[in-house]
């Protein structure tokens, strides 16, 4: 056990720090997930050039073309976070479509789409979930029927973030309605400008519209837009769904929030007494600190396993479940500590932290539900992690009988 970094890595860390310091005036304003600004595109180009993003993507596809080095990736992430510097583009195109194409795309698709995606020229959205297909994604019903050289798409997607700004969508559709449900799905890429697509903002409990619904009415898409083979869409999507799940539950986010609550409890008072003096709030804070630390060290273990190419097993499977719950509990503590101040929201006077605690409390609940509900996560942990059996299939198709 050795938590120190060897000299070459220390040097690499120094390089990253120097780079960030030197180019501070080029840092673009923190971007949302939507259309990147010109400053952001320039920054992205510079980061790729340095190998600080798109590091292992071959240069022929517009990446840096470096060897995989998990520690360097970790150092980059750490130093960008520490400096508060904006990282590279992180939308669903970069984080989900690009890995998918690298693994399953044709040479032509890679050459065409990956550079444009990495550069920020093309913004993508993801068309997976449907109102009737959430936990059970494979039951999706959006239909693509053959018509000459084209597919005609009808149906609806939901939870499509950035759909109103996106240029393109990567989308799961049912092309073979008579095949078994996992074998009738195809993975298509098409323009959001195609006639017949309607995007409606989807407002959530936070009061914001972080997502959209997307409706398809006779949307005509060339058949060659497919990634992989017809009916292979489920496998294509699964190759990257694991990336999405990996992004949720990051313990470093929890640690940042914990520190913010410590500060809050040091500064805020009730009846003139610092909140930190309240033993009950303090004990809750400490209980959460135990959990944050445990998840951070669990993260170190995962990192080591990744470096060693070992399977971290359960330590990996629990991250989403535990991490999202932890963030939700942290927000709950902040709200309780603030008491009546904690319920203020929107544009209220006396609002603390721009209402971020309430927004997190709700959004984190959304994350507990989304990207595999807590229930699905527990199924995965018990089945894959502990080797317990799947639920037996019901004898009758309906679960409604008494």
């Amino acid at each position, binding site marked *: 056990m050795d938590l120190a970094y060897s000299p070459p890595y220390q040097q690499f860390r120094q390089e990253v720090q120097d780079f960030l310091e030197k180019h501070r005036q080029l840092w673009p304003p923190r971007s949302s997930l939507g259309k990147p600004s010109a400053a952001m595109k320039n920054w992205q180009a510079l980061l790729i050039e340095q190998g600080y993003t798109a590091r292992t993507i071959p240069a022929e596809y517009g990446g840096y073309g470096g060897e995989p080095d998990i520690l360097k990736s970790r150092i980059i992430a750490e130093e960008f976070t520490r400096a508060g510097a904006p990282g590279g583009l992180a939308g669903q195109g970069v984080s989900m479509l690009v890995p998918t194409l690298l693994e399953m795309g044709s040479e032509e698709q890679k050459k065409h789409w990956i550079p444009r995606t990495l550069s920020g020229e093309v913004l993508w959205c993801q068309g997976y979930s449907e109102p009737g*297909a959430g936990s059970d994604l494979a039951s999706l019903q959006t239909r693509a029927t053959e018509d000459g050289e084209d597919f005609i798409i009808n149906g609806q997607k939901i939870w499509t973030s950035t759909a109103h700004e996106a240029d393109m969508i990567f989308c799961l559709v049912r092309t073979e309605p008579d095949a078994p449900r996992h074998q009738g799905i195809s993975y298509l890429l098409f323009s959001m400008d195609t006639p017949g697509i309607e995007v409606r903002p989807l407002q959530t*409990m936070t009061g914001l519209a972080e997502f959209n619904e997307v409706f398809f009415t006779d949307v005509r898409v060339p058949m060659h837009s497919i990634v992989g083979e017809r009916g292979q869409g489920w496998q294509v999507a699964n190759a990257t769904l694991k990336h999405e799940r990996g992004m949720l539950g990051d313990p470093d986010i929890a640690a940042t929030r914990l520190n913010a609550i410590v500060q809050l409890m040091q500064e805020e008072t*009730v009846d003139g007494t610092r909140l930190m003096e309240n033993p009950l709030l303090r004990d809750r804070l400490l209980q959460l600190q135990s959990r944050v630390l445990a998840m951070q060290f669990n993260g170190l273990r995962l990192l080591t396993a990744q470096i060693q190419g070992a399977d971290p097993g359960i330590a990996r499977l629990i991250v989403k479940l535990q991490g999202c719950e932890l963030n939700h509990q942290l927000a709950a503590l902040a709200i309780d500590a603030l*008491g009546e101040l904690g319920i*203020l929201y929107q544009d*209220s006077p006396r609002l603390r932290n721009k209402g971020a605690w309430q927004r997190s*409390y709700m959004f984190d609940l959304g994350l507990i*539900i989304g990207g595999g509900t807590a*229930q699905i996560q527990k199924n995965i942990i018990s089945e894959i992690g502990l080797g317990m059996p799947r639920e037996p299939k019901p004898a009758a198709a309906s679960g409604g009988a008494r």
Partner: protein
Amino acid sequence: MEFALSEEQLMMQDSVTRYLADRATLDTVRGLIAAGPVHDAGLWSGLAGLGICGLLVPQEYGGAGMTLLDAMLVQEVLGRHVVPVSFIPTSVLAPLALLAAGTAEQKQKWLPAIAEGRMQVAVGLSEACGARDGAGVTVAGAKLSGRALFVLGAADAAITLLCSSEGDVYAVEQGAAGLERTSLRSIDDTQCLGELNLHDVTAELLPAGEEDVIPRLLDAGRVMLAADILGAAQKMLELAVAYSLERKQFNRLIGSFQAVKHLCAEMAAELEPCRSLVWYAAHAYDAVPEESRLMACHAKAHLAEVGRFVARSSTEVHGGMGFTDLLGLHYWFKRIGCNRQLLGGPERVREEAARVQGWI
């Protein structure tokens, strides 16, 4: 020995429920609060027509002269329908304050107007359960100065009752010189909260107050908030069960999955005893005064905890739909979350329960 609601109580609850069923649908409520926190005058006059506004006002002042238990039953229904009306300050706290501490003249001046639904009263008790941001109201030369936060009630309340740092209750008229009101906006736009800044504001003391006027008001307010959570949480449980019997995933109703069933069972198991606790606390307020403080604390604290659990679990059962605005589940979620903090969060209130029992 009968621990149950009377026929009359059930009928009254039923009449409020029937009135609200048409007039306070979720879509109506959604529309009413679209622009921010609201006390809706239309619904209020409808409730006045049912005699609800003057429930606690004695008959001699035109009210119904009923008990906190009756008012609690109304509040449960208001919570169930997330109704944007300020029943607690105007129809519960104000009459109780006037009856406990008001002069005959004050009662005569305000109680009939309250009973008829003609007047709104706002009430500021927040500083009596933990002053934030240095708030507090002091008295000098019969004028009030300072700041009261999280004042309950409509922005256009004709008077506001405030507690001074000495524990007295004062009435301040809207538009009084030196008085400035700002709306505070919480997660829950069905409830109105205000901040009052006072600079030498003329105010009227409610002089007959004994030592425990403010604690008694807190008791009543806490029982009412607990009842509101009870109604809202019960509705969230019912919505979760109903949704689970409609929604299919993996070719099954999700309500047939043990994980979903057990989550609903846990909600029911937690919530059902709460009903009896709130009943008893409301009953004790009038009938067993020596237990009133303790029971009010427990009702408020426990409903805050169970309410949070139910709000979260019901949302989970609804999956992504629970998180959207489409079903509007969050209106109940936020009402419960807001009530949790008003008039003291659970830890604070439990600490008071320890003191009441002489444990510390």
